[in-house]
């Protein structure tokens, strides 16, 4: 089950891509940055632990830069 550490380059690419959108699904990120989805999932896991990205559940689960999507006013 152990998947090892994420590739730092993939993590950078994920952050760079998330900077350009409000939120995205990891499958969509993988397609956009041309990286296998499993690697993106792993990168997102570490980025979430580092408090750089967060998960959001709005009818399905998205990923976004931490704090980018605000609670409803």
């Amino acid at each position: 089950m152990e998947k090892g550490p994420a590739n730092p380059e993939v993590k950078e690419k994920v952050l760079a891509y998330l900077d350009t959108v409000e939120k995205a699904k990891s499958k969509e990120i993988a397609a956009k940055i041309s990286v296998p989805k499993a690697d993106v999932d792993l990168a997102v896991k570490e980025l979430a632990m580092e408090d750089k990205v967060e998960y959001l559940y709005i009818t399905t689960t998205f990923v976004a830069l931490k704090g980018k999507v605000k609670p409803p006013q």
Partner: protein
Amino acid sequence: MPDKKTPKLDELEHGPWPSFVTEIKKAAVRNESAKDLLNLLERSYDDKRGHWKHGGIVGVRGYGGGVIGRYTDLPEEYPHVAEFHTMRVNAPSAWFYKTETLRTLCDIWEKHGSGLTNVHGSTGDLIFLGMKTEELQTTYDELSDAGFDLGGSGSCLRSPSCCVGPARCESACYDTLDVCYDLTSSYQDELHRPMWPYKFKFKMSGCANDCVAAIARADCSIIGTWRDSIRIDQDQVKAYAESGLDIQGMVCDKCPTRALKYDHEKKELHVIAEDCSRCMHCINVMPKAVRPGKEKGATILLGGKSTIVQSAFLSWVIVPFMKMEPPYTELKEMVAKIWDWWDENGKTRERLGELIYRMGMTKFLREVGLPPVPQMVFRPRANPYVFWPQDEIVK
């Protein structure tokens, strides 16, 4: 401010059934958000509409689920429920507790939230109902230190749940509690960090009575069964007969396959083993006299889901019989292939059952490497429109 009146809700404190209003009031004695919840609910009873908004917030550090974000749309009037999130606490297999375990949960929840719970929510998790955003992390930390963890929410594996199984049921054909605990432990990433098109649920029932409604509620339903024949204890059959049970009428005539023959003279019950479809009826009526066979395992069914979008589906058979022995390698290898296929092909918010329906069962079976067997269908297709694979065509 004087306490507001709640005449409508007060009506629901009358009557013999225990009242949730009384419960909210108990919590409201100590907690301002429980008090505001009561008042807000009275408002809904007046307005005939809900007063909640959904927010995307899902969890605590490292988690992609376990929290449902909730905000009232009337924060000025009900400030203590301006944020009123739910936390899902992953329950032990088959919901067994020691009182000390429950007290620990109560103590944590008394400190950090409304003091209101669902035991349990429909997800199978124990629900902490109503907390502020700032309390999420500290509550989690205390839960984790006390040996608890969050359940799933979002496009992830949801908390598996199971029937009481071998812990207290003579019908159990495999260890539902262990499978539930083993899968939950093995799939922590899938449970806590959503990565799929949509949610995925496992539910385990130890026999075809399906006490946790696995067939109706789970993408993967694991239902206990046996391969050989039911076992009949003729002494006990006689005892039932003498106690006045109408064995012909209540057992044989209701057997869906007419597989049971009752001999009135000898007071003996016989089964035509190859005709029995393992429905559990005779065992339910005469538990002392009839038991499942000895060669036990489970049927694996896929695709169950609720009505959104394509109508609700009941799960259908994909493996008629699988041995269920730890570490459940056969099951896990199959599940891994199925998840990959779904993740690869599924559209956003497409449940596994809908995807199989859209792509075709035969394509699914071929791509995940499962052999077609007649137990998968009630009856074969009536049309001849077979999409023949190219490699089976003479060129």
